[in-house]
């Protein structure tokens, strides 16, 4: 069978990306050297990555990239970096055979599936973890920094970064970015696509540095005792990509209210279309205010925050003491303690609600408290928010606000045309009328997303029965929603203070797949699975 896709060209470019992955790997090396930890996991990874990269690159010296090759390149790149990204975890857990023993006590990451899960969760900026014990006793600071760094690399997109710096991707770069960037379509900010990619990465880098400086400044000012320089960098690297990994076991709850308030606006920015941010910085700040999706985004966050803050303030937002003592996943003392600090106080209620709503809507997945302590309706609001997602062109995952906006408007149109069959009503996004093809595409995407979510939930449930894992419906729903939406934490034992370690390897591999297709917005990955794509 002759293939219609020039897979050599695609793989060659994947090789190029892998080759350059050596550069960011120097950051954990520096960290390891600073803290006197072993650099072996990273040196091994650098060697493997470079070797594989150069080998793949040789497949096609002059890759010619067209639309089909673009899909393949993007899809494989994300799988490849996730595989390579798992190497440091494995080396740390197992050591190097015949040369070095395990560098850290056998951790959950010794299981290759777990290592792959953690790596994919990082690059896809999901933030779900299989780490049973998040502490520097079990994991080195360098390995944790690598974990944070994978999210930062994945946030704005490895392929976008590649387009920005690799001249061979200047042609076809728009295709690649379209396949990778969240939301329907991309907005070219400048005539040259590489320039656009650089602008986006520049803004991304700028906000990351700003957040690190602010967080560390807070620490130096005595307002955030836990937020030392390592933590400031770690959280800077995981806020802007809406990732959610934290080197602290208790996530953002470990930090002061001031630090939480600093992180809130950065999560909000991370969930905003970066093209709008570019407009604000470059020419016209009004573009931001007039953007329909941005308004809807603010509206959604405001409404959800108001409801949840009200529930928390009144005490209805927490599980009752009876349920807290009866349920297994609730730590009764924690519930009583947390509720005691929030019920009846305005600032903690608003902060907890706003933080959590932003963390879920933007799919960052941080937690400023264990929302397992919240009552069922409050938790269902969060589950619902997992399906909203951030803005198109942001680093957030999920279905995206703009798609819901278009769907709501087209439903309204359907209602109108039912009584006025002759009416011609384009669906409008701001002043712009959308092409009907784009509207159909949005319907198809959303339907596909929900179908995959439903099927995955059922598969996870079946697998849980197979291995005898005791899971509730809410836990299953959240497991599938949080991985395909790249959110991070789920409910119950998957909560912000828990992890995904208890699932079977099969379930974890399924979730690796969910994170992969979730990050690439389904179609670029699914199209690779159709025979029509490969056939001549």
């Amino acid at each position, binding site marked *: 069978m002759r293939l219609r896709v020039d897979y050599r060209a695609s793989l060659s470019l994947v090789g190029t990306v892998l080759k350059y992955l050596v550069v960011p790997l120097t950051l954990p090396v520096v960290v390891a050297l600073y803290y006197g930890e072993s650099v072996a996991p990273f040196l091994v990874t650098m060697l493997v990555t470079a070797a594989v990269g150069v080998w793949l690159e040789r497949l096609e010296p002059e890759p010619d990239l067209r639309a089909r090759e673009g899909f393949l390149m993007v899809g494989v790149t994300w799988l490849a970096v996730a595989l390579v990204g798992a190497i440091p975890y494995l080396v740390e857990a197992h050591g190097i055979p015949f040369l070095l023993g395990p560098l850290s006590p056998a951790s959950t990451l010794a299981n290759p599936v777990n290592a792959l899960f953690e790596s994919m969760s990082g690059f896809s900026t999901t933030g779900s973890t299989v780490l049973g014990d998040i502490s520097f006793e079990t994991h080195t600071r360098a390995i944790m920094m690598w974990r944070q760094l994978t999210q930062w690399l994945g946030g704005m997109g490895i392929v976008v970064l590649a387009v920005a710096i690799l001249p061979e991707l200047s042609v076809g770069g728009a295709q690649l970015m379209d396949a990778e960037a969240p939301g329907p379509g991309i907005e070219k900010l400048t005539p040259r696509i590489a320039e656009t990619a650089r602008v986006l990465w520049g803004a991304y880098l700028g906000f990351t540095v700003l957040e690190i400086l602010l967080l560390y400044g807070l620490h130096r000012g005595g307002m955030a005792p836990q937020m030392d320089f390592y933590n400031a960098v770690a959280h800077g690297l995981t806020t802007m990509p809406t990732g959610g990994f934290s080197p602290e076991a208790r996530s953002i709850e470990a930090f002061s209210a001031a630090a939480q308030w600093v992180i809130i606006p950065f999560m909000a920015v991370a969930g905003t279309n970066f093209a709008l941010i570019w407009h604000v910085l470059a020419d016209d700040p009004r573009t931001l205010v007039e953007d329909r999706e941005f308004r809807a985004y603010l509206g959604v966050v405001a409404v959800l925050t108001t409801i949840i803050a009200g529930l928390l303030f009144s005490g209805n937002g927490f599980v009752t003491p009876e349920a807290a003592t009866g349920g297994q996943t609730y730590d009764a003392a924690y519930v009583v303690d947390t509720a005691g600090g929030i019920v009846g106080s305005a600032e903690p209620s608003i902060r907890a609600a706003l933080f959590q709503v932003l963390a879920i809507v933007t799919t960052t997945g941080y937690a400023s408290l264990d929302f397992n302590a919240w009552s069922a309706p409050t938790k269902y609001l969060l589950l619902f928010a997992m399906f909203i997602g951030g803005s198109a062109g942001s680093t957030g995952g999920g279905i995206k606000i703009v798609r819901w906006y278009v769907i709501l408007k087209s439903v309204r149109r359907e209602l109108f045309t039912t009584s006025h069959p002759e009416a*011609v009503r*384009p669906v409008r996004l701001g*002043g712009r009328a959308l092409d009907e093809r784009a509207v159909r595409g949005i319907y198809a995407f959303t339907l596909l997303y929900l179908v995959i979510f439903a099927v995955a939930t059922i598969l996870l449930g079946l697998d849980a029965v197979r291995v005898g894992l005791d899971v509730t419906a809410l836990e299953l729903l959240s497991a599938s929603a949080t991985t395909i939406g790249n959110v991070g934490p789920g409910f119950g034992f998957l909560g912000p203070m828990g992890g995904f370690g208890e699932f079977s390897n099969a379930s974890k591999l399924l979730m690796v797949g969910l994170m992969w297709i979730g990050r690439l917005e389904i179609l670029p990955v699914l199209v690779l699975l159709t025979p029509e794509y490969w056939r001549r």
Partner: protein
Amino acid sequence: MRVIIIGAGQVGESIASDLDRSHEVVVVERDSNRVEDLTYSLDVLAIQGDGTSLSVLREAGIDEADMLIATTDNDETNIVACATAKAISDAFTVARVKNTEHLRTWQHSGDAFGIDFMVCTNLLAAEAIVRIIGLPAARDVDPFAEGRVQMAEFEVSADSPVADQTVREADRFDSLTFAAILRNGEVVIPRGESVISAGDRVVVIGSPESVQGFSDALVPADSLGSPDEVVIVGGSEVSYHVARLLEERGLRPRLIEYDADRARRLAEQLPGTIVMESDATNAEFLEREHVGDADVVVSALGSDEKNLLVSLLATRLGAARTVAVIDTPAYVELFEAVGVDVGLNPREVVAEEITRFTHEGGAENVALIESDKAEVLEIEVDRDSILVGQPIREVMTELPSGVVIGAITRQDEFVTPRGDTVIEPGDHVVVFVAIEVLDDVGPKL
């Protein structure tokens, strides 16, 4: 003044006939038959040739020309003719276009393409329609003095409160002047004792509020009310602009267009308009969409006959008023006679607009009454004007009959002209002048 007119179509001919007595007019036209016609029917020099050609323009005497009016049916020809004229002479150039994109470009820079004044047929027609829609009983409305003064023409029906009253009795509206009564195609200058009878048309000049008030009083109470429901039939450029202008006024008009692609395009461009894709002559559809409940139905389809049909259908279904865009000037009166409430010829509107530039005496604005029976002029008066320095009662004795001072604006304030009002230099005066005395009166004002 030497005026060169490029294109002897309806607009060109209309302007030429308006100017031929007071100016030296040269008409350039490609069609030799039209050239021959004009040579005999008007007192103008008609030249056969291409208005964009240098040699033809030279032959027409572009070097001594004060003004060049390019008014062919082709936008690009008009633009190139003006640009060519500008390149070789100092003539004031006027171009007529249909495409509003050209207008926008010109407005942006003020003198793009070497054009000093640009008029857009479709836009002017749409503006005229929207003005008419704004006043339920009016047949024609024109703004003066930046909208502070309005001239409106009303038809007086038998059940109207002013029917069979004398002008003195009817004159109970503040800041409103009766400028003329049009009876059987004749212009009657109203005196206090003149009787307004049913079937007459009255021309009034006044502040927009008073004109609206008069309009409200004229229309029987049951059909009263602002036009909320406007249905536009046909998706022409004129329709597009009418819908757009109505949207700007906060209305949500409905627009019916047959062609699917065109309907989609219009729906995209007009967020505040409900666009329907249907055949507007489909009575069942019109009934289902309650077109009969509309306050105004504007028909702007491509053919005069269809516009007549749609207007009659709409009237039959119960639409309060119909406005039809009529391409053939001769049909305007005919259609109005058989049931169209207002017929509007876009080219006539353009001709009016262009004519204002050709008037002596610094007329700021001009409207034609009954095509050419009379003109309403807006003049900024200077010290030399006969109007200045004495009460209007005395001014009037020095002017021939057929002249009515309709309204005055002084430093942007509306002043109602009465017998003892004294006009000052710098005032803007809106004056009604019957065509017979125009040449005589014009220079004195």
